[in-house]
């Protein structure tokens, strides 16, 4: 009996491969280095095809943006009273995506979770690129893009200062902080691996890796400093997991609009962000491990854990939706009440129910371990979650705006091609960076995976 329980515990914490080995036991040090380095060389035709599509989308996006600047924002489908559309939807979506990276690397690192090791590099890269994507949207969105620097608080000859009462300023600060910390974290964590790559690479690549690895030699002293600093960054980044999306949610919560002004927004947004971020990790890592033949590094065990996080955060999100409705219905606020009835039954009911299906129903399948460990099923479900989370922001922004206070001024949104192209281009932009990253950097942490391999001087299986 005791053994049974012990076995399950071990299964959960250590990850048992089909051959009955603990995750990491099957590798040798050189195998890890070789396999991961191999993944970053010799791209296949599919890689170039994917990169080509991404670059094409980015170019289309740049063209569309230029068009918007020249003819004015009116070229996009803004339909007052809906003054914010896909650009802000995408902004919030991408900031949300950026969330799981820090969570996995910082919070789970502090909790000493072993399963994060297979995926955290991907998640961190995703974070950095998602913030890079999100950061573009405020610039695309504003009416006079050529004056974007008005939004930057720096001493200037205009003798003007920004308004720190505005949630948009908080946003600016929060996202910038998050980006800086995430980038540092990402980079610092990669230094030992870059050094490994330096050893393997030749020619110009070697030079670049040499520079990037900052002369890492792998001495004890370096490792000690490295681990300390990594721990420090993890501790520093942890509050950011909560803060950045809380602040983003204040963009809405500090407004007056029914459906926006709600104190539940910060926790609800954070849960939603982790939910969508984790789903995005699944979405990215599934084709990646296939393409780069990294199946042995990212196993069912990882999927099982990611599925659990998606399930839990999905339930939190569902709960938040329920609370939102309950507050709207029982608070006695006419506008809130109308707003939520409108969401569920009005012009955009399809978007609302699509969101409910994707975010509340789909994750429930992950209760089953069979589902969680079925890689391709997880991939499909994660795409549903991504769609659902995109529509959650669509619901919050567009539906709330179309049905606010004055009935006479109600309106419905009519989309137009520029915002759709730019939305697609943002995916192109994000995946472009990701694909480039995957070819030049270690997508799985070599150093941390090696830590799981039984120490060579000991007998295998012993602690």
């Amino acid at each position, binding site marked *: 009996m005791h053994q049974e329980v012990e076995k399950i515990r071990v299964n959960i914490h250590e990850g048992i491969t089909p051959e009955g080995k603990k995750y990491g036991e099957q590798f040798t040090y050189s195998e890890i280095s070789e396999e991961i380095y191999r993944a970053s060389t010799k791209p296949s035709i599919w890689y170039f095809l994917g990169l080509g599509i991404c670059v094409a989308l980015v170019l289309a996006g740049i063209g569309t943006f230029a068009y918007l600047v020249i*003819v*004015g*924002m*009116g*070229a996009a*489908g*803004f*339909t*007052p*009273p809906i*003054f*914010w559309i896909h650009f802000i939807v995408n902004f919030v979506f991408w900031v949300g995506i950026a969330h799981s990276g820090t969570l996995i690397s910082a919070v789970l690192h502090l909790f000493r979770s072993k399963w994060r090791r297979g995926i955290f590099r991907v998640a961190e890269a995703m974070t950095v690129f998602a913030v890079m994507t999100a950061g573009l949207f*405020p610039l695309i*969105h*504003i*009416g*006079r*893009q050529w*004056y*974007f620097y*008005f*939004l930057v608080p720096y001493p200037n000859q205009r003798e*003007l*200062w*920004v*308004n720190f*009462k*505005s*949630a*948009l*300023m908080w946003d*600016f600060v929060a996202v910038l902080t998050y980006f800086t910390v995430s980038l540092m974290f990402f980079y610092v964590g990669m230094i030992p691996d870059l050094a490994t790559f330096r050893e393997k690479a030749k020619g110009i690549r070697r030079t670049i890796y040499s520079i990037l690895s900052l002369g890492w030699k792998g001495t004890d002293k370096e490792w000690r400093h490295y681990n300390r600093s990594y721990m420090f960054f993890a501790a520093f980044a942890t509050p950011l997991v909560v803060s950045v999306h809380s602040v983003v949610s204040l*963009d809405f919560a*500090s*407004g*007056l*609009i029914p459906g926006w002004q709600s104190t539940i927004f910060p926790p609800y947004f954070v849960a939603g962000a982790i939910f969508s971020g984790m789903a995005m990790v699944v979405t990215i890592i599934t084709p990646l491990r296939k393409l780069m033949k990294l199946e042995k590094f990212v196993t069912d065990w990882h999927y099982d854990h990611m599925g659990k996080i998606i399930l839990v955060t999905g339930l939190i999100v569902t709960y938040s939706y329920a609370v939102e409705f309950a507050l709207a219905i029982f608070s006695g606020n*006419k*506008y809130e009440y*109308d707003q939520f009835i409108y969401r569920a039954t009005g012009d955009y009911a399809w978007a609302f129910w699509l969101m409910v299906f994707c975010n509340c129903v789909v994750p429930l399948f992950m209760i089953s371990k069979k589902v969680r460990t079925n890689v391709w099923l997880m991939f499909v479900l994660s795409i549903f979650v991504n769609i659902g989370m995109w529509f959650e922001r669509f619901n919050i922004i567009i539906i709330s*705006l179309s049905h*606010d*206070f*004055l*009935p*006479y*001024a*109600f*309106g419905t949104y*009519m989309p137009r091609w520029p915002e759709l192209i730019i939305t697609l281009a943002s995916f192109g932009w994000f995946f472009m960076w990701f694909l480039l990253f995957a070819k030049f950097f270690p997508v799985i942490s070599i150093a941390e995976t090696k830590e799981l391999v039984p120490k060579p001087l000991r007998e295998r299986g012993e602690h």
Partner: protein
Amino acid sequence: MGENGKEKITDGVDLRKRELFKIFGKTSVAVGTLALIESCTRKPQPEKLLPYLEFPETVIPGIPYWFATTCSGCPASCGILVKVEDLIPRKIEGNPDNPLSRGKTCARGQAIIHQLFSPDRIKKPRLKKADGNFEEIDIQSAIKLLAERLKSANPEKVFILTGNITGKTEKFYLDFASKIGIPAENIIRWESFSFAPLRKATKIVFGKETVPVFRIDRADLLISFGADFLDTGPSTVLYSRWFAKFHSVDEENNSKGKFIYISPRRNLTGLNADRWIKVKPGGEIYFAISLLNKLIEKSAVKHKDVAERFRTYLPGKLEELAGVPESYVDVVVEEIKSSKNPLIFPPYFGDENSTSLAAICLIINYLLGAVDKIILEGFEYTKLSTPKDIKEFIDKVRQQKVEVLLVHAYDPVFTLPKFLGFEEALKLIPFVVSFSYHEDETSLFAHLVIPDYHQLEKWGDAEIIKGLVSFYQPVISPLYPDTKQTEDVLIEVANLVKEGAFQVPSFKDYIRAEYGFSDEGWVKALEKGGIFSVDPENILGSVDVSLQPVEQIKDAIKVRNQAKGSEGSVVIIYPSYHLYDGRMANSPWIQEFFDVSTRLAWRNALEVNPKTAEKLGLKNADIVEITYNGKKIELPVITYYGIAEEVFAISLGRGHKNYGRFANERGVNPLQIIPESFDESGEISFVYSGFEIRKTGRRLKRLPTNEGVPRQLGREVAQFTTLSILPKLDAKKKFKELEDIMKKKFPRGDWEKYGRDSAKPNKYRWKMVIDLDKCIGCSACMIACQIENNIPFVGEDQVIRGREMTWVRVERYFFTSDEVLHSLSAENHKEHSELSKDGETNPDKVVFVPMMCQQCEYAPCEYVCPVYATMHTSDGLNAQVYNRCVGTRFCANNCPYKVRYFNWHDYFKNVPEPLTMVFNPSVTVRSKGVMEKCTFCIQRIKYAEHEAKVQGRDIKDGEVVPACAQVCPADAITFGNIKDENSAVSKTRKSKRVNWVLKELGTEPSITYLEKVFVDELDKKFKEKEV
């Protein structure tokens, strides 16, 4: 500037501001009316033009001059003042001295300035060549050509088609005719709305053909049988002012004029009714007969002996004939009995029985003793021809009795119903001359086009009521040198035909000589804008006006049984408030004006009651085909509460084929398919049956409207109360309620101190009060604001996307009488319960809410702007700094009143030259990417501040008037400094009807609305009778 410049001017399209300055340059315009007059009358000599680098010393940039002239937006001829800044007319305001306008205008009057600068004016005379194409000629040869033609023609066969001409202008045309031998009856005067049925009815009843002035301001009960005196009556501005006086509540005496409107459809006038009696089309006359009979029966009349003889047989049950229960008549009779000053407003036009209906209304008025409110020395529309007269003229054409036709009326090809065949007739006339100032359909059929001046470049006079003379004087030198005032052309032509026919060199001198002015007197009269020896406000109708013999009247009243709706659908056509007969359609701002009933811009639609639409499976924006006798038009559907079930309506004034780029192919003209049908007076019928309405299966993506949901959905936007609750209201309590909301928001209760005066104390704090009970919803404020503040039009495709830039929009909310009665019967009248869903009922109570920036003291837009582009000023304004704005649009999202407008494109680039001239030089033209909104006309505030500072005093109350308050014909808007205890705005804010829109949000708006007062007793009476 030489040849080159001349070409540019005549080219027209290419006309640059610079060139125009050059034109002004050579005309030495100086201060004072006379100097300007002289310069304007001089003919421009382009070859001597020099670049205008500096203005003459007397023209100071930023200091406007005001010139009095007359409006041409409709034949009512209101007096206007034109603001001329930097030598260019920029804005129109009513002439305060003129008894008709009293400083106000309607929406049309604001927009005539756009016509002056229309890019599609005819810039040079045209002669039709043998191949049918036009060739441009110069003005002198055109005049010679016309003179030769007239010389050779038989004067008996020369006809002149003019608009409504009055005063000495009328005399001039008669003079001209007699001097070259044209018989006086060859002058045909055509206006689309000639009010012929009413004229005929006054002739029948009182023996005098006139359009009487109804003193509605003296009535306490007004019953209108479909008379739209606020829309397109003989003087919209006068009636709007009187209506507001009559209909607004007297808080002290707790009384208010009651207005009952009997018609199958409500236009602006009908929407203002306290009770709309929704009769079947054609049922009005039976209602009137029934009313007459019942009044006599219940001996509610004065002249009993005569009255008995007017009893008329009603051919059937009223319920079947008019579609309303007979008990409604009882209620109306009771109301009449209990009121001191009842007045029945007869229709101006309507169905085939409208003359008879008008006559019955006049008889009722006579019997009630209401004739003291009917001035029979009324509006001078008396000599206008009717469509039937035009038909006779066309017969003459067919009999080749017409050799030359001079057309100086607004586009008769467009305004005349197609069945008359005017277009074909024009082709038969050997020589047609058009004097249109603007491209129009008639000029296409003309053999010679001699472009007239626009009204603002002209001399002239108008005497719309005897003794009330308003002068036209030019406010700018003529824009195009090859145009000429028609009257001047006629003088030259007459002199050529017959030497010495006219002794005076120009029409201006003719007018002056006719009135016998001295130099000084002439200048004074021009400064004043006219000779106002009569003020309709000071005259009354004669009580002892004699009736025509009863039998004669009875014989003249014929009731034709129209059997409406027996086969096919019933379609009502109605004149549109803002387009009038279509003449305003060349102003893009008027095109973008949201129709007072359909709320559509840029096009018209088929109005359907929501219930009927549901029954027929029609939805908004579905395109339907309307057929009559094989002729068809296509229109989108719009549902509208203000129309009876089973009836359809289409507005007039749209569907131009050649009226400039803004008017062409905008909507549809129903006059193209209507069948021949005349009323007794010769006016066409406005109600037709037998139309076939068929769905085409196509639909528009969306209609260009600014209306979202026309119901309040239980929110506190359109605030109202009722007459029975009003005495229970207490001004102090009401104000405390508002204060408490703010105190709750600031727990220490220091809301009044917070933020205000803290940074920089100011002696002014600007506030506005809008009286919803006075507002008639005409939206003149909207267009006045657009012109004052350089708000561009955006075009139909943008309006469809909801991107219109109306800083003021007049929101319209419908309520059912049940909602009004139930929601207010409770002690707590806050709960406006929505008793039924849209479409299931027919809400018939209307509240208009002019919605502009509320200049909130705690503005939700201010704290969300990351760059301080919107911020509070020390005098209480919510200022918008365009230069600082980067366009995050958070402010617009966060504005609960949705009054912020974003420049999605460079809209001002849509405005073609020379239309850009109307832009107000004191206001920035905004570029794309910035947010804008109502500023309380900050440029006017600053102007007054500077004036006051220069003179070392404070701004006086009433010195600063925003454009919306200035134009409002109902005087619903009061503006002023709240820190001045004696200012008008401080006083009106002490009303017990004070309220804020969405007050519970705690924004403390600077605009206080005074609640609309519904006459609930009237509704109760009708409700009792229904049961």
